[in-house]
């Protein structure tokens, strides 16, 4: 996502992992961990000119 935002021309792209994000079921949680699944907050700006 970070790369997509920068590639489109957005500036000031920032990302922060969402603390506390988890899946309620253990099986989903294990699979998500294996694939490095995270929730992330992205911010970005369209250039002014």
């Amino acid at each position, binding site marked *: *996502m970070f790369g*997509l*935002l920068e*590639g*489109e*021309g*957005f500036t*000031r792209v*920032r990302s*922060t992992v*969402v603390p*506390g*994000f*988890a*899946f*309620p*079921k253990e099986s*989903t949680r294990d699979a998500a961990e*294996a*694939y*490095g*699944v*995270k*929730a*992330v*907050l*992205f*911010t*970005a*700006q*369209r*250039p*002014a*000119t």
Partner: protein
Amino acid sequence: MTDLALLHAEEQAPLEGVIKGEVLRMYQEVAEHPEGEFHFYHGRQAAEMFGYEREWLDRAPPGAVASFAGVGNPHLRSRLQAGEVVLDLGSGAGLDSIIAGWQVGPTGRVIGVDLNPTMCRKAEAHAAASGVRMACHEGRMEDLPLPDSSVDVVISNGVINLSFRKRTVIGELFRVLRPGGRLSITDIVSAKQLSQSIVNDPKLWAS
């Protein structure tokens, strides 16, 4: 688009339709039966987990809170100002639109876009009950039903990961934002390439 990419997109088209249907079904289920069990946390429990202010959750219509199905809190970094025009991409039952509407006030407005027209009507009703100016448009995030440079801020919560065409979605966000406009979105990302069996499973896309 290259020939190879075009071929790939055409091969994926039937699966994309199936996944769109499954996503619609899943979020309709959350809206109609929020007491159910899902693969993701939802409702007030999830909103509190992500740092939504209790005052917001107490003040918003219970139906909007119970159907919340986000993955984080885009309001933490949205820096909304009075009078701004906000696009809530994938507005669902409307909780994020309502919170944004309170921040932009009566001189601002919130535009929702959602794949599901029933959810759009529900979000508008919740927003009206909260004193928020919101108009929700049924539409696809890959082809937003909005003019160029028409919004100040885009917020979104756990929606873009549901698209097969994320690059197109990001292009659409760039198009509808005015120059100098900004976005604050929370979403799911994975560090590793997902296996084909996961990519081809509509239920996992919707969860």
